[in-house]
């Protein structure tokens, strides 16, 4: 028995609106999302004693956000460097802090002006730091869509994964977004639309790529005991796992068709005491279509190499074996660097997801970028309780 299982809970979620130009600072976005999450939980800033985020130098720090909300002496904070791969580790670290009694009410947020201020798509932004960049950037290999296209191509070559598999995933997620009032992209798309969308970095088309979004999302982490007395149905953190691996240049990971999630998943499921067959809904990090395909395999929903046909089979749509990215994901809801996936999982487990509700959802998986940029990933298993 894992000593952390079900000891903490997600008691509230909060959002700003999503847009292409928020017109405000990331500090304002962070404060707005945190206040919304606290209100959702029935709490106030007086209750907050922990603040956490992940960022890549593009957003307001916890040390700035805390005082801006009048939280002057948090007993715990975390300013985690990193992108999507650490998004779920932030909540995992908050789980540890709350379970250890270091903090009682932690707000985890991600605030980002990813379209109007700091684009990740490779235009108008300098190369990210890190010793490996010097071996890639001189060749014009500088942006995430190129990196993930490289890995997608290897999967296509090895397993016969097709453009139509990626396309069906994009079509399914857009259909989910149509049922999500928060989503930025709510016009249905067809396979023809997908195939006709312009090349970005072959084999990726425009509709393989996530949105670049301005917005923020926040979560409230507290003890399971306390969450039982708060205003929303309780969502327990059954398990959090995060960890590293080898980077692609370190010599440890040559075959890119297996992501770091393959190493993480057994540890995650063991900590939760369940297997993939018990997961009712999965919010899977979809910076690109391919990152979902590979994680469907590496989190055990289908055999290795069959992620493409599985995604195209209807198994991931409403009423399918495992509904995926019910909010539309980064491809169609908006890109808040992983936190909006966790928030959607919470909503599904509370049963307040409206038209896109997965009937009777009791267990959710939410995952981070599967270790294709920094050699780390992270994930959560949440349970209605």
């Amino acid at each position, binding site marked *: 028995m894992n000593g952390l299982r079900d000891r903490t809970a997600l008691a509230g979620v909060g959002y700003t609106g999503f847009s292409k130009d928020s017109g405000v600072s990331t500090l304002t976005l962070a404060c707005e999302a945190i206040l919304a999450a606290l209100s959702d939980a029935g709490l106030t800033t007086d209750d907050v004693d922990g603040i956490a985020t992940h960022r890549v130098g593009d957003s307001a720090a916890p040390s700035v956000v805390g005082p801006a909300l009048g939280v002057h002496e948090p007993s715990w904070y975390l300013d985690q460097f990193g992108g999507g791969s650490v998004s779920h580790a932030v909540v995992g670290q908050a789980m540890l802090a709350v379970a250890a009694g270091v903090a009682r009410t932690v707000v985890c947020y991600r605030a980002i002006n990813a379209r109007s201020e700091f684009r990740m798509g490779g235009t108008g932004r300098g190369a990210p730091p890190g010793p490996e960049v*010097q071996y890639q950037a*001189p060749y014009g*290999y*500088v942006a995430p869509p190129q990196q993930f296209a490289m890995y997608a191509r290897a999967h296509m070559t*090895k397993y016969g994964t097709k453009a139509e598999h990626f396309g069906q995933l994009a079509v399914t997620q857009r259909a989910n977004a149509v049922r999500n009032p928060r989503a930025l992209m709510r016009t249905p798309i067809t396979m023809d639309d997908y195939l006709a969308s*312009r090349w970005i970095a072959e084999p990726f088309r425009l509709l393989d790529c996530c949105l670049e979004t301005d917005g923020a999302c926040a979560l409230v982490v507290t003890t399971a005991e306390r969450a039982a007395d708060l205003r929303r149905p309780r969502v327990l953190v059954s398990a959090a796992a995060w960890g590293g691996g080898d980077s692609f240049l370190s010599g440890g990971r*040559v075959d890119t068709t297996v992501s770091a999630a393959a190493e993480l998943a057994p540890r995650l499921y063991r900590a939760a005491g369940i297997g993939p067959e018990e997961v009712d809904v999965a919010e899977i990090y979809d910076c690109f279509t391919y990152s979902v395909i590979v994680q469907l395999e590496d989190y055990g929903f289908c055999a290795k190499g069959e992620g493409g046909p599985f995604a195209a089979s209807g198994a991931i749509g409403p009423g399918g074996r495992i509904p995926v990215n019910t909010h539309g994901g980064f491809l169609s809801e908006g890109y808040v660097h992983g936190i909006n996936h966790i928030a959607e999982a919470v909503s599904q487990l509370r049963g307040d997801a409206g038209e896109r509700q997965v009937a009777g959802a009791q267990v959710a998986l939410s995952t981070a970028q599967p270790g294709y940029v920094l050699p780390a990933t992270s994930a959560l298993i949440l349970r209605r309780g």
Partner: protein
Amino acid sequence: MRPVPDRDSAEWWAAVRRRELAVQECAGCGTWRFPARAYCPVCRAREWRWRVTDGRARVSSWIVAHQRFHPALAPPYTVVRVCLAQAPGCVLYGTWVGGGEPVAGEPVRAVFTEVDEGLTLIAWEPAG
């Protein structure tokens, strides 16, 4: 975009200027590694020496950039990811100068492109 060598990589880039594709060989366990760093990740030995490879590799994957990802680089262009023949755990990226489209597993060789007096880059072409 010019590379910015660091204290671990400066000698490697200097070798490229001499048209040498080098990797480190661990003096402790003999493992070849790239990119350059002080300690062997296999045996933790700190002693090593440069080995100039034969520049042969195989294509692991490739992309064709269609969007303008950098002001200085006009699309379309193809970037390949290759694994060295003498050390398949050593992965490099580079511009594809093969003409047609690469093929997965295709044997390739390094081509040294002198950009200017201070910079040489590596491209890859079919070895067949």
